[in-house]
């Protein structure tokens, strides 16, 4: 008991100091109008900013959900653009009867796995058969500037594998925007930012900075999506074609959201072409 008293006398100062300071603060705030007002006011400011901080954080955690819903919205809107419609306009006499039919719809998807530094690169996306994805569908970037990503090769219930543009097996029809000369996109395993456009006719006039876009020949992609910007071009010896080296418009290293293109008329075209070649 005596040692307890001694202990308190020796070291109780700090404790007593804090207790009495707290008591004083309590008295100040409760018995002085001016300080009371300031106290209430600033505690509101503090609690308000804490609440704000909390909602900021929860918003951050809801961000991916939010982005998903935006991507779905975008897919719906994209399907209403002109290049997603098949124009059924028939010119008869001078009466123009404009009629459009839905040709492309879009399924938004998120990339869950990707490679860009291999010789044959692929992406995995979190949409599959259940969501309407089938092999040989085109995949485009969600980037508003354009850019395509690849072609669906394998589909499971919930996921799909996409053969990336950076894959040696890729061969996608594309054209120069300025004069509509066609070629095929093809990739050499060298630089994930550069794509080649091969088999461009020898007489095509090519300029640096020309835009390469998806062509109307492709059943996988809507026409007119920018793919790359012409950097250099050359003619291989003894060849009748130009090869163009172009910088990709999108960076495949950081793509997050993509749209899978569903061409509603692809079956019809394929069937017809099959019939024609069978004859």
């Amino acid at each position: 008991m005596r040692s307890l008293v001694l202990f308190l006398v020796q070291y109780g100062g700090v404790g007593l100091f804090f207790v009495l300071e707290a008591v004083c603060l309590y008295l100040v705030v409760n018995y002085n109008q001016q300080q009371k007002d300031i106290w209430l006011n600033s505690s509101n400011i503090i609690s308000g900013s804490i609440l704000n901080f909390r909602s900021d954080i929860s918003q951050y955690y809801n961000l991916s959900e939010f982005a998903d819903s935006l991507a779905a919205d975008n897919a719906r809107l994209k399907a209403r653009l002109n290049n997603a419609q098949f124009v059924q306009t028939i010119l008869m006499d001078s009466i123009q009867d404009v009629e459009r039919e839905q040709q492309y719809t879009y399924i938004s998807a998120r990339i869950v796995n990707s490679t860009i530094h291999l010789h044959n690169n692929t992406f995995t996306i979190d949409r599959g058969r259940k969501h309407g994805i089938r092999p040989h569908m085109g995949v485009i970037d969600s980037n508003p500037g354009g850019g395509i990503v690849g072609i669906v090769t394998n589909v499971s219930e919930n996921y799909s594998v996409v053969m990336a543009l950076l894959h040696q097996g890729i061969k996608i029809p594309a054209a120069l925007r300025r004069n509509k000369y066609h070629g095929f996109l093809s990739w050499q395993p060298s630089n994930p930012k550069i794509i080649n456009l091969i088999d461009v006719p020898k007489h095509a006039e090519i300029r640096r900075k020309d835009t390469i876009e998806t062509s109307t020949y492709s059943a996988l992609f809507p026409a007119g999506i920018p793919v790359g910007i012409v950097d250099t071009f050359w003619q291989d010896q003894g060849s009748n074609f130009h090869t163009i080296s172009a910088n990709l418009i999108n960076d495949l290293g950081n793509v997050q959201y993509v749209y899978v293109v569903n061409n509603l008329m692809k079956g019809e075209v394929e069937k017809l072409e099959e019939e024609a070649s069978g004859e």
Partner: protein
Amino acid sequence: MNSSTIKHGIRFVLLVLAQILIFKSIDLDTNGFSYFTIFIYPIFILLLPIRTPTVFVVLMGFLIGLTVDVFYDSLGVHAGASVFSAFIRSAILNVLEPRGGYEVNASPTKSSYGINFFFRYAATFMFFHTLVYFSLEIFTPVYFNEIFIRTVFSFILSMLFIIVFQYLFNPKE
């Protein structure tokens, strides 16, 4: 109850009376804004014997501050400042300790350790006392300028009276 305790008790009462009867009415009130408050009652805490345990000093600080508060109608403001300055008193004394150490029953007075010592001791003590006092009174860092100006004015005037007190009464303990 020895004579020293009685002496300090009487000093407590007289200082509080002086504070609330004389110094409370001295202020240059301009448009309801007083630039300074003269603190005389902290002399009680200042002159408590050096070996007084911090617990006791803090408790005394609280008591005298609260007593003054009752008359100033500012419950907790003087008490808060006094508790703070009482708490740091031992730290100030430690820093200012003379080479030979303090004598056993001495008080930190001008007569025991000289005016030089007392001035530094009282100045440090009073600076924190006034600073905490005005921080509690104004209660918002928004008016930092006001806190600063009033701290400086009050500090100078209070120090003047505290030194005068030392020369006037020259207390031994």
